[in-house]
């Protein structure tokens, strides 16, 4: 059951990403290009995605467990540390450079050819590499 609902969720996520145009790197870079020919589409995507989640969070707050009985989302971690700021900054730099963030990179994997695969493999390597990297530079805190 858990695996079925996660499949449905992933499928809808992928569907939403292609319908919204988030898999178009030019559109994403157009949104980040505030000094150029600014494309506001992404604001509608983010706003549209936040709307149902606003309702969902209000409902989720009143529940202890999910429908399948697992503990529902521990209270949010509120510590704003260097790792959050530095990590988000690095992520944003890469996002602007290629116009892809993790969701759309995977949603477009089947039709982005070798370029899409190269980005995905580099991203996955970066995710794996970040563990020993973090241990070394001790950015936590």
């Amino acid at each position, binding site marked *: 059951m858990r695996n079925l609902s996660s499949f449905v969720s992933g499928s809808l996520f992928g*569907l939403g990403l292609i319908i919204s145009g988030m898999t178009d790197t030019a559109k994403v870079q157009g949104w*980040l*290009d505030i000094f150029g020919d600014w494309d506001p589409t992404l604001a509608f995507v*983010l706003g549209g995605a936040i709307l149902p*989640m606003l*309702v969902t969070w209000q409902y989720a707050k009143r529940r202890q467990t999910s429908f399948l009985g697992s503990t529902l989302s521990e209270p949010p971690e509120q510590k704003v540390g260097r*790792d959050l700021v530095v990590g988000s900054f690095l992520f944003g730099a890469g996002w602007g450079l290629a116009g892809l963030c*993790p969701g759309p990179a995977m949603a477009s994997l089947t039709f982005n050819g070798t370029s899409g695969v190269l980005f995905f493999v580099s991203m996955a390597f970066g995710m794996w590499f970040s563990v020993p990297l973090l241990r070394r530079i001790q950015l936590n805190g």
Partner: protein
Amino acid sequence: MIEQSWVYGLLGGLIIGIAASIYLLINGRIMGASGILGGLVDGSGHNSWKERATFLLGLIGVPGFVVLMFGVPETNITSNGWVLVAAGLLVGVGTRIAKGCTSGHGVCGISRFSLRGIVATVFYLLAGGLSIVLFKNILGVI
């Protein structure tokens, strides 16, 4: 006059929000693309690997299926290998250090009024904007 791409953006966004709601209410988890993949890649999410794998199967497979039926949408992805590798590494390392990306911190964090989600979003948007200025306007590599 509302531009068509905004309507599609809003519609697609709503579907993404519903996807995140399902993942939260049924699976009890935050729908974050980088976290779901990252937990598989570095092994930290091995206890929930099936849930992660089925999510990714839908995320990767269903758009592939849709494209087979309706044709490939515009992607405009660069063919510059150095740009792809550098950007991929930055996105991979950055999202793991920050523990989230546009879906986890952006969609799920902001809607929860999470301070971390809001701060992360401010910084990745800022860096994204600066990245365009640097790589497009100054260096001209994109």
